[in-house]
């Protein structure tokens, strides 16, 4: 394409609602409102993190907490640095991963109900992980592989059973819910077969708990997320056309089949990795993307804002989980379920039979 007459301003403007970030030969579209929402979520997240570090069995002064985070000497080094910070790190990573996972799978399925924690992905991850624990083949280093395998297996089965020459959104979700129930029973079966100690460990893990989670869970998860980051950046761009109808997207030169498969696989991987680290923290993947989308009013679910919203929900939910019945600590999954379950019911009641996202 040749430039005949330069536009009056000299540089290209941007489509309404977007700003263009420009480098030497690169240019990126940034949705203005999404950028503002991301900043606000980030501020909220910083506040939530501070609250998570300060509140608990013993209350810590905010400035002491900040000192510990920045590696300065503090009187509360043990409580903040050893007890709370590792747990917070896991919560942040798990929440962010679940937020993006939900966004991707909801996008591909064109349905807000089709979230990995509704359609059996996280349940598949749990079943295999608990199974591995029960039969003694799951050491801490290989457990993530079991959960990823379980998540992929469950997603594959749901897809296989829902496919009838096409994928109908409602049938897909219903079959997914069916699998979720079946896999949950399977997990219970594993627990009853396990010896007492493993059973108790598995039962806590099952509800999704940041209890006793620390850097040994955070580190592999952080590496995995870092590895998947380029794929997530690609996905954010791919979403722009995937949200259009199939014919239009194809006409725009998108290879819809492979792109959808890649997005869904990425979503399943993220959900399974998060589940492997903290157990099935229910409803974060369902809620975060929808909150993000409603705040940004974008045509597709914004991935960065979904990640931030997911992290915010998880970190916020963990505070009452620790404080409410102190010294007994609730699993964070109980708190997220208390928020998420009513939303799920509302969604089901309000879903039209077409099931469009």
């Amino acid at each position, binding site marked *: *394409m040749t*430039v005949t007459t*330069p*536009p009056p301003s000299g*540089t*290209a*403007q*941007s*489509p*309404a*609602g*977007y700003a*263009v970030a420009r480098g030497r*030969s*690169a*240019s*990126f*579209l940034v949705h203005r409102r999404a950028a503002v929402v991301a900043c606000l979520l980030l501020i909220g997240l910083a506040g939530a993190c501070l609250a998570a570090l300060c509140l608990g069995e013993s209350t810590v002064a905010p400035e002491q907490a900040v000192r510990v985070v920045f590696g300065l000497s503090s009187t509360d080094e043990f409580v903040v640095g050893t007890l709370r910070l590792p747990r917070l790190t896991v919560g942040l990573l798990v929440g962010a991963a679940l937020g993006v996972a939900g966004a991707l799978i909801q996008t591909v399925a064109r349905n807000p109900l089709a979230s990995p924690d509704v359609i059996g992905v996280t349940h598949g991850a749990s079943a295999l992980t608990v199974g591995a624990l029960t039969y003694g083949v799951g050491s801490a280093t290989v457990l993530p592989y079991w959960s990823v395998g379980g998540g992929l297996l469950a997603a594959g089965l749901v897809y296989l059973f829902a496919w009838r020459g096409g994928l109908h959104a409602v049938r897909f979700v219903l079959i997914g819910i069916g699998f979720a129930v079946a896999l949950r029973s399977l997990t219970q079966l594993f627990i009853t077969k396990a010896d007492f100690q493993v059973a108790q460990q598995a039962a806590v893990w099952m509800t999704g708990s940041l209890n006793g989670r620390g850097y040994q869970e955070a580190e592999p998860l952080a590496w995995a997320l870092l590895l998947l980051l380029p794929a997530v*950046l*690609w996905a954010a*761009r791919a979403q*722009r*056309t995937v*949200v*259009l*109808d199939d*014919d*239009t997207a*194809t*006409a*725009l*030169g*998108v*290879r819809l089949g492979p792109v959808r498969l890649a997005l869904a696989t990425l979503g399943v991987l993220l959900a399974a990795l998060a589940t492997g680290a903290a157990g099935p923290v229910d409803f974060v993947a369902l809620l975060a993307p929808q909150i993000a989308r409603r705040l940004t*009013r*974008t*045509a*597709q679910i914004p991935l960065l804002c979904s990640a931030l919203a997911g992290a915010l929900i998880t970190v916020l939910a963990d505070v009452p989980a620790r404080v409410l019945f102190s010294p007994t600590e609730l699993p964070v999954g109980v708190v997220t379920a208390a928020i998420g379950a009513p939303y799920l019911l509302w969604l089901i009641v309000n879903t039209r039979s077409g099931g*469009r*996202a």
Partner: protein
Amino acid sequence: MNDQRQHHRLSARDLTLGYDESRAAVVEGLNLDIPDGEVTVIVGPNACGKSTTLRAMGRLLKPRGGAVLLDGQELSRVPTRRIAQTLGLLPQSPVAPEAITVTDLVSRGRQPHQRWWQQWSEADERAVTGAMALTDVTALADRPVDALSGGQRQRVWIAMALAQDTDLLLLDEPTTFLDIAHQVEVLNLVRQLERTVVTVLHDLNQAARYADYLVAMKAGRIVAAGRPDDVVTAELVHEVFGLEAIVIPDPVTGSPLVVPGAPVPGPRSAGTSHMRKAPIT
């Protein structure tokens, strides 16, 4: 115009199309050359395979037999992104994502020209502004697409297809669901485009008015193809649509105008006596 060596960048060879392997083919052994730089209109009765043919020419449907050729290359062997840089297609009932704004949707038409690291260029800006001006949707730029009227929405979709900036453009029934004023508006717009256009239309008279090249299909075959003046006759209308009609010159354009026979007198025909006075001759 009647150049024998006229160029055809897009053509169909022995095209056989169907949706379900177990069922009969919808289109069988179809050959068609699309004249470059002109407006080709495909007409025919319901379920004659006209939309199916258009979809196959836009690689939305894989041929069961034969091939669609773009610049001499079999469409199924050209990377879909490269096709999208040459050939645009507006499907029959596109669905906009919820809450998307007009500019946002139109700018997505630039997809085949963009890269992951090149999301907005001057060419993108020019194509989008130009397409929106041409379709007269500039004033709607910030509005959500789902809040627009049917006519406005259709213009926005056409703007998106135009922003794709392709030499060839396929439109699948672009006037369906529009009232007569908006139909005329869209068809006038189509005539102004300086590119090869292939469109499926329902209305035979509109086809005769706006087509440079008219293709009449019936039961998956091409019955006639050529200039509307040469093709549209009472015999053809009878053969293709099974309709008794006369063909007269259009009082405005001189193109063939199809006038169907008088309505059958109904039970209240006494009140509509003027209808009985117009027997077909």
